[in-house]
């Protein structure tokens, strides 16, 4: 039996069996859409870095799929006074070198964070508000701040803990002060994390190798305190262009890819050997309007007036947009129409249906424009990036279509992200399309950044490039930022959000949905923070 046909069959059978082998060997290969810049958990506050960090270095507080806080290295936490929080730490945790984890490691970590050399973006954003760390006993930590700090547990979910002992520091001799913990404290260099020698964490995986441009390799932590990861070995390959990434999945070179392009989802879904999961993200795509400049740039046909200062015009522009059509036709169904700045289910957002997207009504929009004194509309230009968000320029173009229908002559000024953002920051647009991802996963993040009256001393309105100002909403928001009680704070945030939406301060379009594609044999629960976490990837049931 050695006919060519038979041999061909054998070869074909073997070839078909090969893609199935790695799963049996409990190895997972992932195609990353963007590569981390370092394995150092405190080097660069960047999505891909934080995603890798969670596998190796855990934080005190964890976050679930909807970015709600969950216990991790801290079993529980609670405010003990207006300006201090107590964290009760787990007692059964050891670092991967065998040294036990305790509160001194947290102090050591917070001490290291401000001093990372050459860091493009420090984690002091999260630790800057800490004025004191008090080690009551090795597993009880009290964190002090100057002001009431309701978001302190959220801040402690953003950075991973490194070991003091493994780096040759006697943690009990260390005292924290915001000015520094003493210059003689030995800290590992960023390079030591990248080559693996300092990559000693408490996480479900150990760093096996980190090679920029080539890939990252993780192995399972055999002594992990929690539920062990399913995979013995995880390889993450940077496949930054969309086409090759999807092709690698289809060809079986990788088992799992981040961010497959929208236009390929239909095809991937149709393949019985593959699975696509998608989840709503914390990023809203919005159009911000110029509330302040008179005359507003690139507005024509109004004799110098700024029509956007009239709430009727803002309402008309809001209801002229058919969000469902954009979601269906431009986003290929992979987005959710937005009624405010944070999707339902996240902290401070309204329950599903309580503040729905404004219904599309072109006739009423026309009537409102006429009522406001613009029966023939006016001319406006939407500024938009063309390479930052999913289909950004196409979405802007669809909005332009819809505005043109109610008589508002709309042009599109699309440019590459760096150009767009510098022009936007110089207030060169009277309307611009952009997106905001709520890093903290709750409503104060978009409200503070996009709608609070600009005030650099209070850190408010940093991205409010429409210069919206509503003192009543500011007051509610500031009260929320001072309120430690969760229920009261959530109600205040909802109230502030509703006030802004009723004032048509900004035009929310849709929430982006993040897709992941994988072999049908594995499964992943979509996450609002858009992270790909190998220890959460499981075989499908």
């Amino acid at each position, binding site marked *: 039996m050695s006919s060519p046909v038979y041999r061909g069959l054998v070869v074909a059978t073997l070839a078909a069996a090969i893609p199935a082998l790695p799963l049996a060997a409990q190895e997972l290969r992932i195609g990353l859409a963007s590569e981390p810049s370092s394995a150092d958990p405190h080097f660069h506050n960047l999505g891909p870095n934080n995603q890798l960090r969670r596998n190796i270095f855990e934080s005190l507080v964890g976050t679930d799929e909807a970015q709600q806080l969950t216990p991790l290295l801290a079993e529980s936490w609670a405010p003990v006074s207006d300006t201090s929080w107590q964290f009760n730490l787990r007692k059964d945790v050891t670092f991967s070198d065998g040294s036990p984890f305790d509160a001194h490691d947290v102090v050591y970590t917070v001490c290291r964070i401000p001093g990372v050399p050459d860091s493009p973006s420090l984690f002091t954003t999260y630790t800057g508000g800490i004025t004191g760390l008090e080690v009551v006993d090795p597993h009880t930590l009290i964190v002090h701040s100057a002001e009431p700090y309701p978001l302190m547990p959220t801040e402690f979910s953003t950075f991973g803990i490194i070991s003091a002992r493994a780096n040759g520091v006697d943690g009990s001799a260390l005292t924290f002060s915001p000015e520094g913990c003493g210059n003689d404290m030995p800290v590992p260099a960023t390079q030591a994390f990248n080559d693996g020698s300092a990559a000693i964490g408490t996480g479900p995986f150990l760093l096996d190798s980190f090679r920029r441009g080539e890939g990252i390799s993780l192995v399972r932590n055999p002594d992990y305190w929690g539920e062990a990861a399913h995979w013995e070995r995880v390889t993450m390959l940077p496949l930054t262009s969309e*086409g090759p990434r*999807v092709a690698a999945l289809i060809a079986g070179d990788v088992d799992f890819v981040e961010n497959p*392009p929208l*236009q*390929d989802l*239909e*095809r991937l879904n149709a393949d019985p050997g593959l699975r696509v999961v998608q989840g709503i993200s914390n990023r809203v795509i919005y159009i911000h309007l110029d509330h302040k400049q008179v005359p507003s740039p690139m507005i024509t046909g109004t004799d110098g007036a700024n029509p956007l200062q009239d709430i009727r015009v803002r309402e008309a522009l809001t209801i002229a947009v058919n969000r469902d*059509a*954009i979601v269906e*036709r*431009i986003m290929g169904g992979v987005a959710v129409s937005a009624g405010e700045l944070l999707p339902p289910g996240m902290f401070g957002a309204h329950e599903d249906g309580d503040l729905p997207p404004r219904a599309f009504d072109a006739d009423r929009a026309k009537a409102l424009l006429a009522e406001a004194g613009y029966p023939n509309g006016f001319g406006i230009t939407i500024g938009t990036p*063309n*390479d930052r968000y999913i289909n950004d*320029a*196409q979405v802007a*173009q*669809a909005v*332009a*279509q819809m505005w*043109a*229908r109610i008589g508002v002559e*709309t*042009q*599109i*000024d*699309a*440019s*590459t992200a760096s*150009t767009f953002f510098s022009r936007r920051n110089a207030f060169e647009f009277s309307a611009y399309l952009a997106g905001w991802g709520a890093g903290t996963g709750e409503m104060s993040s978009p409200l503070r950044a996009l709608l609070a009256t600009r005030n650099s001393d209070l850190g408010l309105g940093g991205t409010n490039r429409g210069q919206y100002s509503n003192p009543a909403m500011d007051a509610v928001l500031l009260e929320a930022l001072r309120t430690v009680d969760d229920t009261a704070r959530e109600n205040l945030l909802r109230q502030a959000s509703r006030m802004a939406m009723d004032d048509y301060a900004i035009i929310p379009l849709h929430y982006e949905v993040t897709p992941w594609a994988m072999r049908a044999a594995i499964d992943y629960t979509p996450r609002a923070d858009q992270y790909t976490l190998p220890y959460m990837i499981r075989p499908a049931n």
Partner: protein
Amino acid sequence: MSADIQIPDENDPGRLWRLASRLSAIAVLAALLMLLSGTGLPPLMARFILLIGLIILAAVLLRGKYAKFFSGPAAYVATASLLVLVVLAIFAAELSPQNPYDLRQLDIMDGRQPPGSTNFDKTMTFHLGTDEQGRDILSGILYGLRVSLSVSLVATLMAMVIGVVVGIYAAWAGGRIEAILMRIVDFQLSFPSILVALMLMAAFGRGLDKIVIALIIVQWAYYARTVRGTALSETRKEYIDAARGLGLPAWRIVFGHLLPNCIPPLIVISTVQVANTIVLESSLSFLGVGVPITQPSLGLLIANGYGYMLSGQYWMSMYPGIALLAIVAAINMVGDRLRDTLNPRLSR
């Protein structure tokens, strides 16, 4: 003064041709201006004048050399396809079923429909399908052809004017001025044109006027170098000495005697350059720095549909791609024939 010496001859056929070429050149320019400014004659009439003027200009150019130009079937095919494409471009507004630049006529609910489907109200058939904004691809191609052709024609002509002035001036002045001008040309030519154009567009922003300026800046150096070469050899010739001996002013010698004799090689490069300019404009638009996205040219149409190639919605990129291929191939083939016809060296 040279005109005074010339003896007028009513029977000179050249006189008629010269008159025709001047009249049609003026008519073409006037029609173009009217179309661009939207004033004067009704657009349809202006378009006819433009088309007829262009045909007469081409006929003048090939006067007495038709047999040589149409020496094979390829020449007929290329000329015919160029003529068809030019007609399509000039009459795009009348021929296309939709104005793809008028956002009010687009509906994203008609987006990504395959060729042959109809719109929601069944009032219109999309013969080549639609892109994701609901833009009819056929209309997009016709308007895109017009943008691509007019942008490259205008840019080529203006680059030629600048290049000719610089090149002739360098050749005439000589010495240090020539050295400086030609080093600038060398410097510019040492950069790939797409790179320079990309940088310029990043600095200027989007817009038809800006892309024309960028294309002029990228291209003038080719003409300057060519014209200087030709002019250098012409200035050594006897008729220039004769003109000098007559005591003519320098500008008159340069523009009345030197320039006309530098023209034939220019015509040849400019036809090839028009095709190159179309490709360059399309590349810039494809890369997202060219025309405004609400007024797509062929390159932008291809870019819009590019992402959907893998998912089987081929028509968004493929048909504009074919149109681009056709226009570039037609211009190049006609340019080749022109070179063979007009190049005096080949006729010896």
